Structures are given as C-alpha cells and as structure tokens.
C-alpha cells in the first residue's frame, strides 16, 4: 500500500512543481540558463545549495554586464528527487524554456536519466558532482571528480603517510560506490594488497543502525596491521555512521576513515568533536586560503544572508563550469550548442583552490586533489595535496573492460569510447 501511496505522492509533487515554476517567460533579449536541482524530496538536502549557488553566480555575472551584451536569466525547475522526473524537467527546460545550457543533477542515476534528452535535443549539461567515471558524452561536461581525481589519490595518501595495509571499503548500495570500490579493489591488488586484507561492505540508502558494521570494522582492524576505512557512504547515512564511530571509540589515530561524500555541508549537521582527524578527499575545501576563495565565501554569505552557510566542492565545480561556459560562449560569439561544444575544449578558468582548471577533450577537467582532516569547527584542514593538477580519467585504467577506452570529442575523432586496442569507436557505454 505504501508503494501505491508513494507513487501517488510523487504524482502530486510532480503536478505541483510543474505549475509552480511556470511563468518564467521573459523577453528574448536574455540568455536563459537552466537549473535542474531537486528542491524537495531526499536529495533536496544537497541540491538546494547548488541551486542557490547557481542563482548567485548568475546574479554576479549580470552585475558585471551579463553575457554577449545580454542579461542572463535563471530558469529553476524542481525534479523532486524523482529520477524519471529529471528527464521530463530537462526536456521542459530545453524545448519549452529554450535554455542555452543546463546546470544540474546530483546522482549518477539522475544524470543517466537525462542523458538521452540532452542527446536528442542537442543541448548542454554541466554535472558538478564526483562520480564513478565510465562515461563520456558529447553533450555533458563533467566538472566533478572522476575516481582518479579523488579516490585513488586518497588511497595513495593513506598508504604512504599512514602506512595502511588493511582496507575496509564501505559504501551505500548503488552504482557510484560499487564502481568506485571495484576500481579501488583492482588498484589495491595491483599495489600488492592481499585480497584477505580488503573487506567490502554495502548498506542500504539511509541506513541508520551502524552498530554491527562498526564493530565488524573494529574486529577487522585488530589483525595487527594498520587499518583504514574508505567510505563511499552517501548522504544521510553518514551522520549515524560517524556518531556510532565516535561512541564506540574508534579514533582517527587508530582507524582513520576517508570519505568521498562528506563535505562541509554534511558536517554542518554534526557535532564534529569526536571526529577530529577523520579524512575527506575533495578538490576544494572552504578552508583553502586564497583571495579568490575568500571573495567567493564572502559573496555566498552575503547572497544567502546567513553568516553560518558553508561552501563545498560541488559548488566550486559549478563555479568552474559556469565560468567555463561563459568563456566558451564569448569565444564562440553565440550560445549555439555545436559552436559552444567546440569552443569549450581547452577553455581554462581560475578555480577556487588557487590555480587554473582546463576543460580537456574528454569533457572532464583538470583539478588539484586535496586531502583534509576534519576539525572541531566542522571545517577541513588540508594535510596533503597533489603537487600539480590531475586530469580527469573517464575510463578507468584498473577495470579490464575500460582500460583500452579513451574519449576525445575533438574532430576528427569525436568519440566518447574509442577503443585503442581495436582502433574503433564504440564499446562499453555505447
């Protein structure tokens, strides 16, 4: 009965949200930018912030004179954390509202659901969240981290600086953790870690009773070798997980946890005292100390009128993606999709961690990788960073069926899954 009720609820929400955001029809002398982030439902917790960040970026750009002499206009829709609705809303943005580019989606499943729409209607999507890779699509620019820009450097750090020999790969049960853990497992084994020194554990979304798993981790960690937990646990489940770690006395000095989905925003709902020293790997931290970031934080706090709001990595990804798009449109002199797609490759803009990010031919960007330790004030302190920028690797070198694939969207190759072994375009993911 509850499934029926859920379906009905989703339907109701759908009807409500379609009616709510119409009326954003304006004159033709603006350039429209679509924002496709959930404002209700389970993903609202993360995505609402990104919607606000986009609105802020657009407002700031308009203050600077807009783009190509026109003002920018944001068109916000609410896909309500409902994956099929993402596709519907994307279609509405492109064909009804005629937006020039869309910034949005959070989970891989939402991105996969909108891919056919962007392909069919030939529009542009900027995806700002770290993901599992294994994809490169002509109409999508991936401004979040690929596994080699987050997961692998984190493991390297633990191996070199903490001499970790035993690994717990704990994740939520869906595509991103599963693929990432597959890549990490292959990577660890290639580094000489024995299979019995790797423990893999999956939990459902929103898991709240971590007692058994935390005591399993303690047990696994008492084999006389330094143990670490690599966490791809997503969203809400993190809070009870960290609470249980703190209560059962698992200290970062003994068994550190490095997380890929825990940022400043997630820590905001948590008493971080017992968590000091646990790690996270990102491409940006709010605590990064440079003038561009200080300015960004100041603008953000002023825009939200809240002094306690934090910034996080996906926000920086939108910052980079938006500026790249502005630059590409200026370069192309038009918002026409094909021209912008060509102009995007090679565009280079400042990021917030003090360097420049460049759009590569595989539609992924270059980023630095930072490892930070959680502090008592809910911020991260960078303890390590890559010496230079890391290029996003869409097809992992550590998976058998993707190691021969590359993506290059420049003519004449223009292919997202070129197989270097067979010399043909097409293969996995086509």
């Amino acid at each position, binding site marked *: 009965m509850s499934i029926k009720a859920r379906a009905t609820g989703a339907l109701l929400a759908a009807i409500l949200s379609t009616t709510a955001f119409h009326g954003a029809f304006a004159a033709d002398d603006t350039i429209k930018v679509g924002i496709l982030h959930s404002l209700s439902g389970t993903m609202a*917790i993360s995505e609402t912030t990104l919607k606000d960040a986009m609105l802020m970026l657009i407002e700031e750009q308009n203050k600077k004179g807009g783009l190509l002499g026109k003002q920018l206009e944001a068109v916000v829709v609410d896909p309500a954390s409902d994956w099929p609705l993402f596709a519907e809303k994307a279609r509405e943005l492109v064909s009804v509202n005629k937006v020039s580019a869309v910034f949005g989606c959070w989970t891989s499943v939402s991105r996969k659901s909108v891919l056919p729409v962007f392909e069919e209607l030939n529009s542009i999507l900027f995806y700002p969240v770290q993901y599992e890779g294994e994809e490169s699509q002509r109409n999508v620019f991936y401004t979040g981290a690929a596994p080699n820009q987050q997961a692998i450097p984190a493991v390297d750090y633990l191996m070199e600086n903490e001499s970790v020999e035993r690994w717990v790969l704990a994740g939520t049960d869906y595509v991103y953790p599963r693929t990432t853990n597959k890549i990490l497992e292959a990577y660890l084994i290639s580094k000489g870690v024995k299979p019995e020194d790797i423990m893999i554990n999956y939990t459902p979304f929103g898991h709240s009773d971590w007692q058994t798993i935390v005591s399993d981790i303690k*047990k696994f960690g008492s084999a006389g070798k330094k143990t670490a937990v690599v966490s791809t646990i997503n969203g809400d489940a993190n809070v009870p997980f960290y609470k249980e770690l703190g209560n059962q006395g698992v200290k970062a000095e003994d068994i550190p946890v490095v997380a890929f989905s825990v940022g400043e925003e997630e820590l905001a709902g948590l008493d971080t005292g017992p968590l000091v020293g646990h790690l996270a790997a990102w491409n940006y931290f709010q605590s990064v100390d440079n003038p561009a970031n200080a300015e960004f934080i100041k603008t953000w706090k002023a825009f939200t009128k809240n002094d306690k709001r934090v910034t996080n990595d996906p926000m920086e990804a939108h910052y980079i993606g938006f500026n790249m798009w502005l630059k590409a449109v200026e370069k192309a002199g038009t918002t026409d999709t094909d021209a912008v797609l060509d102009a995007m490759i090679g565009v280079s803009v400042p990021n917030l961690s003090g360097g420049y990010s460049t759009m590569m031919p595989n539609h992924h960007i270059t980023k630095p990788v930072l490892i930070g330790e959680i502090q008592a004030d809910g911020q991260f302190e960078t303890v390590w960073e890559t010496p230079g920028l890391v290029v996003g690797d869409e097809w992992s070198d550590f998976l058998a069926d993707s190691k021969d694939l590359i993506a290059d969207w420049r003519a004449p190759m223009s292919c997202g899954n070129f197989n270097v072994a067979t010399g043909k375009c097409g293969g996995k993911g086509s």
Partner: protein
Amino acid sequence: MHTRLIHRFLQCLLVALCLMATDLRAADDLRSMVNALGGGSFQQNQKQIEALAKTGDPKIVPALEALAEGDLYLRKADGIVFIVRPAGANFRLIDALTGDDLGEEAKAGLEKVKVNNGLRRTIRGALGGLTLMSPDVNVRLQAAGTILRTPTADALDGLEIALAAETDGAVKAVLEKARAAAILVSDRPVEEKKAAVATVVQTGGRDSLSLLSGALASADESLRPDIEAGIRQIEDQLSLWAGAQNIWYGLSLGSVLLLAAIGLAITFGVMGIINMAHGEMVMLGAYTTFVVQAYIRAAWPGLFEWSLAIALPLAFLVTGAVGLVMERGIIRFLYGRPLETLLATWGVSLILQQAVRSIFGPTNQEVANPSWMSGAFELGGLTVTWNRMWIIVFSLAVFAFLLFLLKKTPMGLQMRAVTQNRRMASSMGIRTPWVDALTFALGSGIAGIAGVALSQIDNVSPNLGQGYIIDSFMVVVFGGVGNLWGTLVGAFTLGILNKVLEPYAGAVLGKILVLVLIILFIQKRPRGLFALKGRAVEA
C-alpha cells in the same frame, strides 16, 4: 677566618649561578624547540616532538596537549609559539612552557601549528611516557592505558622505572600489562617474551588480539606456538561475546523500532487509521529537540544536560497539537474510508515535510548528545554505548506509561470502549468524537516523544520520518493490530532477527530476508503475532 667565610660564600654563589645557568639554558633549549614546532612540516615536527619527549621534562606537557587539540599557534611577527584560548574576536595568549597569561592578540597575527593523525599519535605516545610519574593517580592510569594501546620498545625503560615506584594497585595492574605489551615489540630475550605473551593473553580483548597478531609476524620460532595458542584462546572468548553482542544490538534496534512504532500502535493499531504522516510526527519531535537545544544554548547554557528532559513534554505537546488539528480538520471526515485516509495523511506528510524544509532549510540540523548519552562502557567483552542503552530504557518506560494509560485510567477505558463498540460507548454518554481526537493526539504525541530519542542517533532532517514509516507499519502488522504487547514483542523480535542475520547476510540482504520472513508469516497468521479475539475484531 673572615676571608675563608667570604671565600666559601663566593664559591657557593658560583655554584648556584652555574646551576641556574644550566637550568636557564635547558629552558632556553626547550623554548627554542617548542618554537621550532611553528612552521615545521609534518615530518620535521614528528622528529621535533620525539626530541622533546626525550628531554623527559614535564614542562612541555601543556604545549604538546595544546598541539594535539589544535590550540598551539605561531605568532607570525616573531616566530614565537603560544597556547591560545579563544577570547571573543581575539586570542588569549598563554606561554607554552610556564602557562603565564600574556594578554590578548588579534587572530590575524597568529597562525595555527598544523597537526595530523600521525602527529597526534606521536604526541599521545610522548605524553604517555611523560606523565607516567605524575602525582595524580588518574593521570598515571591514563598514561599507562595509552602505552598499553600503542606500545613501543622505547617506552619499556620508563615503564619499568614507573612500575618500581608505583604504589597504586590499579595503576600497577595496567602498568604490568603495558610492560608485557612493550616487551612483545622490543628485542628482549625469548623467556621474557613468553611471560609477556601469557600476561597479554590473560588481559584478553581486541587490543590484545591485535598486539599478538602483530607480534606473530616477526616472532622467534620458539615463541610462535605460544602466540598462536594465545590468539586462538582470545578468539574463542571473543566469538562467545560476539553472540551476546549481536543480541544486544538486536535489543537496541528493537527499542528503536518500538519507539517508532508505538505511536502508530495507537493511531493505526487501536483506531484503525492508516496514518502515513506518522513519520512526520517523529520528525517534528526531533525538530522540537533541536529548537529547545538551540534556545538553551543561547539563553541558559548551564541547562544543556537537561535539554532532552525539557524537550520531552514540549515535543509531546507540539506533536499532540498537530495530531489534534489533523484529526479535527481532516481525518474525522474520512472515518471508514481507508483509501481516502491514506491519501489524505500522505498529503499531510508531504506538506509537513516541505514546511519544515522551508522553515529550517533542507540541511541536517545539529542535535548534540548530552554527556551522559555519549561514549561507551565495557561490560565483559561487550561494548555498550550509552545512547543505545538509554534508548532501550526509555522505550520500555514509554511502553509502560502507555500501557498504564490505556488499562488503568478513565481516559484509557473510554478509548478502549470507543474503539471496541462505538455506538454502545456513545449511548453510555461518552463523547466519542472527542475521544477519537484525544486518542489520535495521544498517538501523535507519543510519536513526538520518540522523535526526541531518535534525534540522538539519527539525522535531524526533513526526511527523518520517511525512514521509519515502513518499519513502523511492519512492526505493528507483525505484532498484531490493536495489541500493545504485540508491538513490543514484534519490535524486539524483528530487531534481534535483523541483527543476527546481518553479520552473515550483510545489511542489504539481511533486510530483504526479514521482509520475506514477515510476508511468509503474515500468510500463515494474517492477524499477526497476537491477534485480537472476540467481537471487537468484527466491528
């Protein structure tokens, strides 16, 4: 005579001066060593801390403690390192060695001395060694415990000296264990190590297991059988305790299920309303706790330990009032139409969720645990966390309260009368509509109380309730609709079943298995564990 006296005096003075000079020089050395911590890389600081620990001077303890806590700062202007305490927009500077107060300084002029896990580990070891001879028994006990957890061969000499001087029995016992642990990782002769293995095995527990497995790799041939036997012995003990631990986890999960379901046992179980907004009542209870805590933090920080006790009645009133409005405004028009009730309450749940999202924002809110709900204690081989333990106690207390209310009070009597035979109750002069409203308010209020408890272990976000609604219905249906005892037994059965399955099947498969078992059970006994009998069933 006179000259000799002066001569002696001068001699003494010289010696004293010399002594003072060496003392000063040592202090100078310490100071420059502490100052060198500022601006050093992690590797350099690691060496620096080890060097500081070698001096064995207890004066550096506060500086090291401050470094581990992240309270050690470098003054950029002159490169001097201070301990700081926050003082408004400024920092209060404290001398790193003497502890003297040196006034306030703007934050901008100071830079934090960075610390990472590796440094914290080194500091912990160093502090353990430095505080072994402290006059305070508790500090000594803690120091011995630290060395026991992270034994090093270097600590051995210090341990033996401390052991010889120790008078307190409890500290001595820990020191003995720590010494045995340190011997295992040292290069002492095999005989001594054999004795050490025996001591470690006797200590038992996970840490000992970890120590022995670590030592096994580099152990001498003649020592191996001892260590292996020891490991087996500890593992046997632990596997026994693991069974008990699973049952405990099951009880704990069961108590959470009970709390989530017990309000529903009234609204759905007793009244027969399919209340999809039940989860949102739990969520409102949790948000009430958040508001209470925020208010207390701002107005009376001293009352913080009592915040939960204050939140309980408020949560009951808030959610009870929402329940009352819901019943009077919507549900009373829909009695006897379950499908419409389901849709209407689902709509209410969406409205409540989005309202909370609009008011408090979509992100998680921080609800802190009072100190009596943090941490854990050891019971034999069991790790019992305080928050789980109090939640079990609390859930049973709520259950007892509800049982008393329904069975022993006039209000409970009226409630049972109305739900069993409405027309008869009505003709006896009971105002049935108001009893309905109050019963629904009671169920909602109990859900709100559950929310106060659940805010201690789960996220406080607008989605909090959704995670519990399915489980709540599951418990009530499994236990038998309309029976409080059924809800109790159902909750604990499902909790224990889940936790016994989890280690073997994993969290995902475990949950699926439990659902399959419930479906099979409902096929066999459609009315649940404790079915109501008699005329009430047909009504």
